[in-house]
Structure formats: C-alpha cells, structure tokens
C-alpha cells in the first residue's frame, strides 16, 4: 500500500451458504491496522455470519480470510483466539452464575497457568498469579466504570444490563487482543449509556495503541460518532464502503435501509 496504512485483516471472496441461503456472498473487505471499522446492514444481511466464520464457529463455504499476513480461513476458535482476535456476542453470553472476576478470567484463559503443580499443590504460585490478574482486571474495569471495579467479587447476574455489557467487552479486552470484534453492543441499552460505553472504548483504544476494532451496529449515531470507516452489507454482499458521510450518501444504502423513496426522507 502506498498510503502507509497496513492491512490487518482481509476477506477474499468470503462466501457462506446455509443450505439454500447465502449468508455471505463473495465478500471482499480490507480492515486497516488500528482503525475503528463499522459494519452495518439490515437484519439478516450477514454481519454476524461474518464474525462467526471469521472466529471459526462455522467454516466458510469458499473464499478466505487473511489476518496479519497469515491465512486464517477455517481455523478453530482456539487458533483464532491465540492469533489475537477477541469478540463479544450479539446476545450477551456472560456467565450469570459466576463472579465478575471469574468472567473476566475466562477471557484471559490462554494466559492462565493451568498446571496441576500450581493449582493443586504449591498454591502460593496460584495466589501470586491471582493477585496479578486481579490487578489487571481492576485496571481494565477502571477505564470503563470505577464502581464496577469495586464489585469484582459479585455475581454477574446481580449486575444491571449496562454493566453486563461492560463486563463482556472487558472479558474480550483483558487478553490484550490485536483485533476486537463487537457484535451489536448497544442492544438493550439506552442511548446515553451506549454513548458513554463507546467513549470509554475509544479512550481505551487510544491508550492501547495497537488495537483494531470492528463494530457491528444498527445505531447510525454511534457509527457516525466512533468509526473511521464502515461497510454496508445487504443480502451477504458489500454494497458500499467508506467514511460515514460517503456511506449515508450512497443511494443503494438508502434503498437497503429505507426503501426506494429514501432520498426525501433523509433530506
């Protein structure tokens, strides 16, 4: 690239069929290192399928994903995680019966020492790692909500919705991923809560340095507020890509979202 920006992730002709349904249709997408990238599109347009195939939950029917210079097509979720990609889920998948701390530590799985020696016999080693991890978890939660950092021992099931979202995002961030995939984090939150969460996230990203975020979102205000670029999917195909201003000006996008006489509505 002559612009000096580096491509972190690219999908080449990525296609996913579920029986007769084409959820992803020859999708070509380049995501640059350190950018905040938005993915929008109507329901059923293939946004979540993109995440699910990328993270190895389903295999691609054809096409490929290249991440950080290596082929990541049809890797297992475990390999994807170890490559430095973390995600959240559209329907919150935090473990309600576990404490906030336990939930964060599930996100930290690959950095924990699971050996029999430290866990069962010489538990001083476990204690040391526990203290270290608790400190890391506390620092991370402080960025999002200092009050939540004081409630790490409480069950997630006793926390309000906004905190569950924060916990889920922190669970994905605690392993210091290079690429964070956020699947509609605004669902079930008020606009004010959502803006607060996004501001925290932008602040975290700025401080983390080498972090790229891909955000699936319906709420256009949020896309406008936080993303550098975005792509619009419809019926599994990319219909437009560019800055928010470019995308909303695109006629095909307006049709996909609002029907054929969209221009008058938007104006």
């Amino acid at each position, binding site marked *: 690239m002559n612009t000096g920006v580096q491509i972190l992730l690219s999908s080449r002709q990525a296609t996913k069929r579920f029986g007769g349904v084409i959820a992803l249709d020859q999708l070509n997408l380049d995501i640059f290192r350190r950018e905040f990238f938005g993915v929008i599109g109507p329901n059923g347009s293939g946004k979540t399928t993109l995440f699910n195939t990328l*993270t*190895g*939950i389903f295999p691609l029917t054809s096409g490929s994903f290249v991440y950080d210079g290596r082929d990541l097509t049809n890797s*297992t*979720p*475990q390999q*994807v*995680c*170890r490559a430095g990609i*973390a*995600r959240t*889920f559209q329907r919150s*998948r935090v*473990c309600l*019966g*576990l*404490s*906030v*701390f*336990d939930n964060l*530590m*599930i*996100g*930290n*799985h*690959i950095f*924990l*020492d*699971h050996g029999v020696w430290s*866990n*069962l016999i010489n*538990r001083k080693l*476990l*204690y040391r790692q*526990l203290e270290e991890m*608790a400190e890391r*978890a*506390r620092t991370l939660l402080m960025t999002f909500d200092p009050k939540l950092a004081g409630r*790490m*021992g409480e*069950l997630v099931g006793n926390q309000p919705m906004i905190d569950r979202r924060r916990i889920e995002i922190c*669970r994905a961030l605690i*392993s210091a991923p290079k690429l964070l995939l956020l699947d509609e984090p605004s669902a079930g939150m008020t606009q004010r809560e959502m803006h607060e969460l996004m501001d925290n996230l932008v602040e975290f990203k700025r401080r983390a340095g080498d972090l790229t975020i891909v955000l699936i979102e319906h709420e256009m205000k949020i896309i406008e507020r936080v993303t550098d670029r975005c792509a619009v999917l419809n019926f599994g195909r990319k219909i437009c890509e560019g800055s928010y201003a470019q995308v909303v000006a695109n006629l095909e996008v307006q049709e996909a979202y609002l029907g054929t006489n969209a221009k008058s509505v938007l104006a």
Partner: protein
Amino acid sequence: MRAPPEEPPARKSVFFGVGGLLAAMLYLALVLRVDSQSAILGLLAIGATGVFIAARLDLISAFRQSYRDNERVMDVLSIVAVLILAAGFHNSSFILFLLTTVLINIIACLGLNLQFGYAGMLNFAGAAMLGVGGYTAALLGQNAAIPPILLLPLGGLFAAVIGSILLPPMLRTQGHYSAVVTIAFNLLFTTFLEVYGGFGGTQGLPVQSMSLLGLDFNDDWKINGFEVAFYANYFVLGLMLTVIVAAVVRRMERSWIGLSLDAVRLDETSARCFGVNIALWKAVAFMSGNFIIGLAGTFYALMLGYIAPTNFTFGDSLILVTIIILGGLGSIWGVILTAAIVIILPEKLQAIQEYRFLLYAIVVTFVLLFQPGGLLPRAPRIFFPGWRP
C-alpha cells in the same frame, strides 16, 4: 446481606457453625440408635420441623456463613465430630458398615460432581465405574502379590482408562445425547459381567480383605476391654480417603482448573472463542472423575468382600446422580449431606426400602421445582479463604 465496608476484619463467630454441627451429629446419632419404625418416623418429623424453623429464622444461612468464615476450624471440627460419632458405635458392625457406605458414596459423588457439577457432563455410568474399580480389586487381588493399598489407585486408574472409551462418542454429542451414551455403557457393563463367565458371571467374585502394614482390616480388636468391630478399620480409612478426595476436589474448584470447567459447562461456544480447549477439559473432568469413582468402587469391594454385577446396576448410578442433584450441583457439603440422607434413610426406614426409587423421583422433582440449586447450593467460587478480587 452485604457487610458494611467499615467492618473490622475481626474473627468471625464459630458459634453457629459449631451449634449446627452439634445438632446435626446428635440428630444423626439418634437416627442411627433408634430402631423402632414409629420412633424413626417421629424423628423424621422432628428433623423436618427443625430444619423448617431454622430456615425461617435464617439460622441455616448463619450456619453456612460461619462455616465459610472459619473454614479450617470447621473442617477439622467436622472430621472430629464424625470420628466421635463413629466411636459411639464402635461395637456395632451394621452402623459402622452403614457409615462407611455413606463415605464411599460421598467419594463417588465427588467424582461425579467433577463431571456433571463442574464440566456439565451427565454421567449415568457411575455404578459401572464403581464396578470397574471393584472388579479390579477382585481380579488383581486374587492373582497377584499386589499390596491391597495399591489396589485403590489401580482401581481408579482402570476406571479412568476404561471410562475414556466413552470420551469419543461423548465429545461428539452434547447434553442429553451424551448422557444416553453413558446409560448404554452401564447397561452393557452389567450385561457383559453376567454373560461373560470369566469374571464370575452372575455369581460374582470374592474379594480379599484390606490389609495395611500387617494389619488385616477384617480382624475385630479389643483395647482395654473395648470391643471394636472390624468395620471401624474400614471406616477410618474411608474417612481418610474422603477427606483427601474432598480436599483435592475443592482445590480443583478453587483454581483456574475449576474456572475452565465452569466455562465449558456454562457456554461452550464462547469458551471456545476464548481459547478453551473443550475436548481437553472434558477429558480432564471425565477421567479424573472416573478415577475417583473407581477408587471408591475398589474400596467398596474390599470392604464388602464379595461383589456381583447386581452391585453396579443402572439403578445404583441413578442413586449417585440423585445425590449430587439433591445436594446441589458442584456443592461438596451438599454431596456429604445428601449422601448421608439417601443412604441411611432407606436402611433405617424399612417401609421405604421397596419404594425408594419412587420416593427419590418425587423428591428430586420437588427439589428441582422449588430449590433448583439443591439443598446446599454451591457457593460462589472463592479461590482462597478470605481472598476477594
């Protein structure tokens, strides 16, 4: 209730813990001592009322809190209390045998808890795993010059290895489907033993007695005119095994291992996305669980002195599963409490012996409806006593 933040880190009271323990031990001693059926029924009514009133007065949560706050002390006191209880029945073979049977069931259920309570793998082949341990004791004990104490880990090892045959089909299926695999295994296991003549068939096999450092466990002994039934030997060893197994299982739960197993149980998909190797952790839970169950089975066979396929039927597996569901999945104290109830009650109350499966089915249904966490629900994980993140 949340403690106010300015509370000083003073020693928490052991009062409720000790009181509850004493009450439970006295009650258990009475139930074991009394023989007339009407007296037993009366005791049951008193016990149920007592528990109901204690629950109403919040005494039970105070009891649990006291146990949690003074864990080391209460652990030791509980062991001492059980030893004193058993000493009170030193010349009664039947009671000591019954108490040891409870201990064996506790050990087996702790193994089952690793599988179902933590990793979420429902195993209806618990009795078969006990059987693998038992037959290991019978077959290896008669043929080779292996010291009986070594039979215990060997029995566990055999159960873990033979049980791992089930892993490939269990890893390919989930939930109920995976449970069906284990049901099939238990049925095949007993049928095989009955049909195949090599292992004694339906007649079963004799098992040598336990002996350690020249002491044969099947000898009664006498100190200062104190007659001690030989089952006391088995009881003491059984208690030691129970304490060791409970300590290991508790440490597993209170570590990254337990957390990984919880992650596997609660949400496989998201766990995989965080790099959790589902197959590996299921294998860890299933094999270590089977090791513990096999160990219990070996000990059981050594105590019984004779085993047959009827000791290890699918019905016995159901009892084990009943115990961990009633106690509260993943709850160690829950297993201890319900194992005692489920094993002792039918022995003392002959009237329900015939109908115990029906009774358990009803009780399990009610517990799942009204107290889904079990009688003593599992407490949130504390990695170390007193440690908070």
